[in-house]
């Protein structure tokens, strides 16, 4: 199981939880598992999310490996200038 920290406005869409646990070993599995477990998160996931794994922000990259003890934080999809 991986613990995923959700940003504040997503918590209401995940039964008010700040951290949710899902079974996943990479970015893609994590997104699929989140959308399956918390369907209300799906619109945001479809719009785009980034993922911080142990402090590094990934914007895409389905196969980014996630270890059970990794710090995983969901973030909005980042855009720059």
């Amino acid at each position: 199981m991986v613990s995923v920290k959700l940003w504040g406005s997503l918590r209401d869409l995940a039964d008010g939880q700040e951290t949710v646990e899902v079974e996943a070993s990479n970015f893609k599995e994590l997104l699929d598992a989140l959308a399956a477990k918390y369907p209300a998160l799906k619109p945001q996931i479809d719009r785009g999310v980034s993922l911080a794994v142990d402090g590094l922000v990934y914007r895409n990259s389905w196969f980014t490996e996630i270890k059970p003890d990794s710090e995983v934080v969901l973030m909005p999809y980042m855009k720059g200038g």
Partner: protein
Amino acid sequence: MNFQSNTKANFKVVGTRVPRPDGVDKVTGRALYGADFNVPGMQVGLILRSPHAHATINSIDTSKATALPGVKAVVTSADLGVPEDESLRDVQDNCLARGKVLYDGHAVAAVAAKDMATAKAALKLIKVDYTPLPHVTDVDAAMKLDAPVVQEARADESVPEGCGPNVTHYCEFGHGDLESGFGMADLILERSFTTAATHQGYIEPHACVASYGTDDKADLWCTTQGQYFVRDLCSGILGIEGSQLRVTASEIGGGFGGKTTVFIEPVALALSRKAGRPVKIVMSRVDVFRATGPTVSSSMDVRIGMTKDGRITAAEAKLRYQGGAFPCGTVDMGAQAAFAAYDLKAVRTQGWNALTNRPKEAAYRAPGAPMAIYAVESVVDELCQQLDLDPLDVRILNAADAGTKSSYGPTFDQIGLMATLEAAKEHDHYHAPLGENQGRGLSCGFWFNFGGNTSVSLAINSDGTVSVTEGNPDIGGSRASISMMAAEELGVAYEKVRTIITDTSSLGQNDVTDGSRVTFAVGLATIKAARAAIRVMCGRVAKIWGIDEDAVVWEDGAAKPSGPNAGDFEPMTLADIAAISSETGGPIAGHHEVNAEGAGVSFGVHLADVEVDPETGATKVLRYTVFQDAGKAVHPDYVEGQMQGGAAQGIGWALNEEYIYGDDGRLQNAGFLDYRIPVASDLPNIDTVILEIPNPGHPYGVRGVGETPIVPPLAALSNAVSRAIGVRLHELPMSPPKILKAVMAKG
């Protein structure tokens, strides 16, 4: 050989100040920018724009314009389909209004004609029947429950119940227990701020030439930060296949985020398709201001608690942004960046985006961050003043560092904030005396930095030279830094490498030149492409020598036996190997395609000294110093250039620049005379101090540097002015009348 190494320390080329490869073209007038490109048979394209801030389009009669001799085509949104994808539909509707005009300057129709005079005459013959609607341009007014509705039903699922009809997005970040945090504070300040919308102000207006064939094959030449994204947007809007649209980026005359989308390109393609001839559109400066993508304006509340020895106990921000007439997620970035510089136990940021009757926001250098950090850094400075604490010591006491749980969630790896703060504290600028009516301000700044999709191809030519092909427009010297990294990795002279930027048909996908990503991501792909070529060269040499590939290493631009056991062979240089490539297996090249991740975040600290004239309220910037972590400065001149240029844009934002709308909802200052960007005589020298805390995610430790430097000037200037006049200011820009009013009110 280790082809994964990320620990290079001794550089020969990287870190030097070589001349840029496009320098001669750009000082002699040879370089071709967007408007400099022409093709035979080209028609002039011109766009009709809305005079209303908000109106229903009842009908558009183009018959008279179409009938005018010399007119080759007239298009409206009826000539385009309606894309299913919502964000693509918004881009298209922004390029040609469908049903309603949503802001002053919104494009309604376009003509292609044999010359400018005919095109102008044709625009006058287009009859648009409008019904004006109530409008709203101010963010706080737009948030209200009874505000004029800009677009119906555009809120996403994040928006809580009870928000006004223009609120499209809500976000919240943070951690910890705010109430108990504020309970531990000796002083809590809560302040409200506003910032005006500003424009990137690139000197080159948007320009393009479209040539669309009857076989649905098309070419587009344009000034852009990302030819691939232009291709994706335009092929989607025109309904053609991506492979059939080749987009070539011209030299780019500044972008700063404003050229990361399309405004005229799909219109030119639609005109060319209908006219059967190439069409050129060049925007006027007035249209650039009215109808491209300025940044958001904001209204913000910040509340921070501090102990009397300077420790921040809790912090909270509420950000309300408007990004024009279409949904916009920039507030997400502001809400995440607001408190990034601080190690906080209790922090919360909330953000709302509201629709207004203004042009669709485009990215502007660290989009969303400057205004949020301005508000936060202003309150921190006022707390320091009221508690009689040194503002730099307080930043150091509370600074985020490796291991800090950031305000937006992830735990920081190696970051350079502490190093920049300490460099600022040691710098003589911080200790120089100030005179009457003078003040010193400081601010931290932050940007996330991105990587992204990147393709690089690197050819070893038979004469021992190197050709690098990449796909990101060179906006401030990146050809030089890419050539330098190729030369460094291959061990050849910088002059042996030439980097060119290619069109969308000649190389794999490249994301837009944005997010401070190019030196990081294209550099990374270039290094990996060079390593791939080295691997081929080592393989060829191993065959020549009759030894194992593993027994050949690459050092100082030559293949060598890995040690005495590998055999006794004279090193073969890149030129030696290249000269016989035909005999050893054919052309030698390397390439790398990656969605680069691992861009390290970037921090900076700015110091500003100002003098305010108490008679006029005019502010003079006396001295300015930028401290920033670059990870590894590949070309220090252009790193300094980013730091200086970002500072100058931020100074303009702080002191002068603003979009001014009249009661009629029309833009009142659409020109460089009335939208005043800093000129040479407005600014002092901008001193720079580059720190190098390597980014573990890049082979040479590079971090993006382009965006962070626009963030700190807003608060640095506001803090300096506030200290100079002895009154706190909460509004940008700090134009002379506002400062004068504050001074008078103080008495």
